[in-house]
């Protein structure tokens, strides 16, 4: 720092030292007052209904199978993704949406997911077998595979839905629907 006078003067030195010490003390005091509890770093990104997620049925108005609910949920999920991370698999239930994330090729982002496809898939399944609607679907997975993201739909076998097949599959856009596929294998 520049010399401020030709002769040594103790006052400027004292003022600087006391001011710096006080500033650091006050800074630490203020920061300690606003220090948050760190969230669990191992928690995967996801969203859930503000009411009990397990009680939401597939055909409820607030079901995440519906496009108008899934779209904001995907946006909220996107906010939780770390920079450079992509989604390996997305698990969609009527009351919750969970993502398994990773980094590498072949993964997708929330913005890539068409929010209207779950309802489209339910409509196609209903056309195949009339007893199945949104309420009879247990969950839908969207998995990043070597051939691109694929949907996997699991019907709720606890309900009276008749004989198998109880699983359906489709590419990202939702068509064509395949009947009774095995769960898709994720990339990596």
């Amino acid at each position: 720092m520049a010399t401020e006078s030709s002769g040594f003067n103790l006052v400027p030195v004292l003022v600087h030292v006391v001011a710096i010490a006080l500033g650091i003390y006050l800074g630490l005091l203020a920061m300690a007052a606003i220090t948050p509890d760190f969230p669990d770093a191992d928690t995967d990104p996801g969203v859930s209904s503000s009411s009990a997620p397990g009680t939401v049925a597939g055909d409820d108005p607030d079901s995440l199978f519906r496009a108008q609910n899934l779209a904001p949920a995907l946006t909220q999920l996107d906010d939780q993704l770390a920079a450079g991370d992509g989604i390996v698999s997305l698990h969609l239930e009527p009351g919750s949406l969970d993502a398994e994330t990773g980094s590498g090729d072949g993964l997708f982002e929330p913005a890539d997911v068409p929010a209207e496809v779950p309802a489209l898939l339910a409509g196609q399944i209903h056309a195949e077998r009339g007893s199945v609607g949104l309420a009879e679907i247990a969950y839908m997975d969207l998995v990043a595979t070597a051939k691109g993201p694929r949907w996997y739909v699991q019907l709720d076998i606890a309900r009276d839905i008749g004989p198998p097949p109880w699983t359906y599959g489709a590419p990202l856009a939702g068509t064509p629907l395949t009947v009774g596929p095995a769960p898709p294998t994720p990339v990596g």
Partner: protein
Amino acid sequence: MRYVICTFLGMTLFAFCWVAVGYGIFQLLGIGTCASGGPYVSARQCPDGTGGLMLALTGGILGLFLAGGIYLARGTPPGAQSPPQNAGIVIWFWTGLFWALAAGSFLAVWGPEANPGPGAKLGGLIVGFMGLIMGAGGLLALNFRRRKQPPAQSFNPAVARIAGTASRFSAAPDPVGRLDTLDRMRKQGTLTEAEFETLKSKIIGGG
């Protein structure tokens, strides 16, 4: 009094903001990627106090500029004849800001209690190295400025004597009278033979 008040306020605010910036980035990197608001409950919900940390970080950066302004207005120190040089101090404020960012980032990634949140490690390293380089740039500028300043002239009594004598003679209008005085000074021993010859040729040459 103005010097003491401005120095005290400026340095206190500077140190406060330095802590706020460094501690703020450290804590934010510990939280990592998170979300708040929206119609659903996020799994990675931003904890309470995240907004305060954001405010501490941005407010700390702005506050450092304010601290610099207050400090630069401090005037002349008590007992000094001239005001202090400020350019070097401004550079120290600059370096302090960026090195606070770097220190907080590196501690969050590599420190003894480092626990960077999801996605925070890469971001912390980028901010850390950026802060380190930007702060070092300030010090380099300070060093460059010092080198550009001309070095202090060493005092040479002979040169000073000749210069003084020459200026006295150039003020006198009569060349003959000037030569006469010069000769007298040589005889008195005030001037050496070589100095006498130098000044004589100057007067004869019309200098």
